């Protein structure tokens, strides 16, 4: 039986960065991807950018974004709920990632049209995440990494704290694959609704999964059951509010809605439930998934009027449209009187008066409502009126395996495994205890992937 130097579970950004780094260091590398070729790479297919620290503007980034500022952003979005030493290490290594990932064939471009406020901090992939992924696969396979699709790891043999072999399910049955080192980069478990229920209860039935249907976390489960230390809880994840009409899985970026700041958001009872103008949208989009998840039946409606229709990026489904608020309520199956009351109360409370500017807090607010809108408050008064129904859209989960600063897995008893590593969503909970900042998932994947590959290679040598 062949023994591989490095066995990589998963086929996304983290897995490929690990495979390439290990292969470049001279190892034999086998990548096992559960999905068929088209769906390879998990959520990487749906990504569009990566957040890396840099001290100066580049051809595609508009200005410097230092490691300190990156760390401040991370501390703010997570509310301090992060392994700070590990995060500092990741951010320090993200500087070099901008060059390294381009050396692997990935190409960058300036921030996409319509995506405001990310041009300085985030590097966008030319052609998007699948293009990025294709480049990594071309590089990996060109170097001699072996990739097998529709191969799912169903079990791991761990002796002491050492990985010995994995049980793999594929078209022809099951096999046992031995390797000197093992890198788990197989994503989160967000596509397993039952597991989500452990954190969210029955509410999870109403969640939409924005990305791959293949991330069910079977390897995460197997590792934890085999004695690897769990990090995070099942309720923590990157969740945004997406169009309720999106497919259950894999709707991707085009079901997102960037219009909360232009109107109000009401729940099933036609009541507002949160300040829609708390901060600029790129800093707040990641909280609305959880906010909607807390509402009855996990549904909400973004309501706005005609002048705002083309102020945000278009999305896949057209908005629900009516000539009156009552008519809109009818189409949304909301109580017309209740929605009219909410809109009237909101309109009457608008102070406003300053020039409307959605790119920074503009001070146009309401006064005297139980929940005020503190910026961008404008009366909803010009028909036709529009609404988008939204539900929580789960991007990826944070519960996973604990790692140390070498990307090595930490066991439940606190010991460090010498030959088991983790990268990407499966260990994102080490960095993200809660909250999210755009592009950070790819940073976690690339930095820890590369690190895991290098460390695995060092172990083999």
């Amino acid at each position: 039986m062949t023994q591989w130097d490095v066995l990589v579970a998963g086929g996304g950004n983290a897995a490929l960065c690990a495979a390439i780094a290990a292969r470049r260091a001279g190892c034999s590398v086998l990548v096992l991807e559960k999905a068929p070729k088209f769906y390879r790479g998990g959520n990487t297919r749906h990504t569009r950018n990566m957040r890396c620290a840099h001290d100066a503007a580049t051809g595609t980034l508009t200005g410097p974004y230092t490691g300190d500022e990156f760390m401040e952003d991370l501390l703010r979005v997570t509310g301090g709920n992060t392994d700070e030493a590990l995060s500092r290490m990741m951010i320090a290594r993200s500087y070099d990632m901008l060059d390294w990932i381009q050396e692997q064939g990935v190409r960058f471009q300036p921030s996409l049209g319509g995506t405001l406020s990310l041009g300085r901090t985030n590097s966008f992939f030319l052609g998007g995440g699948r293009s990025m992924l294709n480049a990594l696969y071309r590089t990996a396979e060109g170097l001699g990494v072996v990739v097998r699709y529709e191969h799912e790891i169903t079990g791991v043999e761990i002796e002491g704290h050492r990985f010995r072999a994995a049980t793999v399910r594929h078209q022809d049955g099951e096999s046992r694959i031995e390797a000197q080192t093992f890198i788990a980069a197989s994503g989160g478990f967000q596509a397993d609704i039952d597991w989500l229920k452990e954190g969210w209860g029955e509410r999870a039935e109403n969640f939409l999964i924005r990305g791959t249907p293949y991330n069910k976390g079977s390897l995460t489960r197997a590792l934890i059951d085999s004695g690897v230390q769990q990090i995070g809880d099942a309720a923590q994840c990157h969740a945004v509010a997406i169009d309720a009409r999106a497919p259950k899985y894999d709707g991707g970026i085009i079901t997102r809605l960037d219009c909360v700041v232009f109107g109000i958001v009401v729940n099933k009872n036609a009541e507002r439930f949160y300040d829609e103008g708390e901060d600029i949208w790129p800093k707040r989009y990641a909280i609305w998934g959880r906010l909607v998840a807390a509402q009855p039946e996990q549904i909400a409606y973004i309501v706005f009027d005609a002048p705002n229709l083309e102020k945000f990026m278009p999305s896949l489904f057209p908005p629900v449209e009516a000539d009156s608020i009552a008519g809109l309520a009818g189409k949304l199956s909301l109580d017309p009187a209740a929605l009219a009351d909410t809109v009237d109360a909101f309109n009457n409370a608008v102070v406003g008066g300053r020039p409307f500017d959605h790119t920074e807090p503009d001070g146009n607010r309401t006064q005297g409502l139980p929940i005020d809108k503190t910026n961008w408050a404008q009366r909803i008064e010009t028909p036709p009126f529009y609404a988008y129904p939204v539900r929580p859209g789960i991007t990826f989960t944070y519960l996973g395996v604990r790692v140390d600063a070498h990307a090595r897995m930490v066991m439940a008893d606190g010991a460090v495994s010498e030959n088991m590593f983790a990268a990407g969503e499966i260990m994102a909970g080490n960095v993200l205890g809660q909250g999210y900042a755009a592009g950070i998932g790819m940073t976690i994947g690339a930095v820890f992937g590369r690190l895991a590959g290098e460390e695995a290679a060092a172990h083999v040598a």
Partner: protein
Amino acid sequence: MSHSTPALTEANRLMTVCNSCRYCEGLCAVFPAMELKRSFSDGDLNHLANLCHNCGACYHDCQFTPPHEFAVNVPGTLAQVRSESYAHYAWPAAARPLFARHGTALAIGLTLTVALFIAGFVAAGDPGALTSAHLAEGRFYALMPHNAMVALFGAAFLWMLVAVFMGARAFWRDAGAPQIGAIDHAHAAHDAARLRYLDGGGMGCFNDSDQPDDRRKLWHHFTFYGFLLCFAATSLATLYHYIFGWSAPYAWHSGPALLGIAGGIGLTVGPLGLLRAKQTRMNELGTQGFRGMEVGFILILLITGTSGLALRLLGETPLLGPLLALHLGAVLTFFLTMPYGKFVHGLYRYLALARHARDMRRHSLQTD
């Protein structure tokens, strides 16, 4: 907005999907052009379709291509829209069905014209000239007098110009007849001459697989510049004839001959490469019902180029007569079918590039 064909309806659906994603906007001109709009008329979609060079990059970069339920296939759909747009704008309207039967039309046209030239050579002059013209002074003019050639090909060429112009005018009007400045023409000429957008956003094009190893850009350059060189050869020969009174045949080292030889090589090598690429192309990137037009256009260019080259090489053998019939038949068939086949793609693409240059220029003025 309702659309007049299934392909246009599908293109409109895709532009809604793509406009909500925009991941591909760095790949080519199509996506930035799309971002300028939220709804699309048939004319807009035909404009976008003619901007698309079918490099295939967005097909492989898209996270929503089949088997995904969103079934996004931009290059395949735009190829269909583009081919249908050639027919839609053609003049006169009665000739539009020719696009779908272009291959058959070419085959019949070529057979008929070659036969007629042979018959003409035999009937109009000395019947023995068909195989002995290479010995005569004036060589091919012993088969067909210069003035007869000028009259026939001049008339065919003029007809072609009128018909192509009428089609282009219809295309342009449907695109909103935008005001184009010299700078826009300069951009369009540059982008067309270098095939700027036939490069997958810098990585290279895709043809038979998900590897960007396609050489269509090279083959197209051979073909296009070969065509231009042949055109230049004929134009220069015309100048020689009418301005300087120098009659053909010209020596191999004369201007027209050198241009013709270089052009003939381009029009042989280029179409061969393009034919091979077309044969191996992924079905997903191709069209339904236009294969005859696409292959036919390449074949008629190939026959024109190779027969011209053969005339130069074998013009002093008894093959002169048959080769001349083949070459003249190919050229005449080409001229007559130019308004009703793939030839118009060059003009429509140029116009789309010019409109795009103008649209982007105006857009940047607005947003600055």
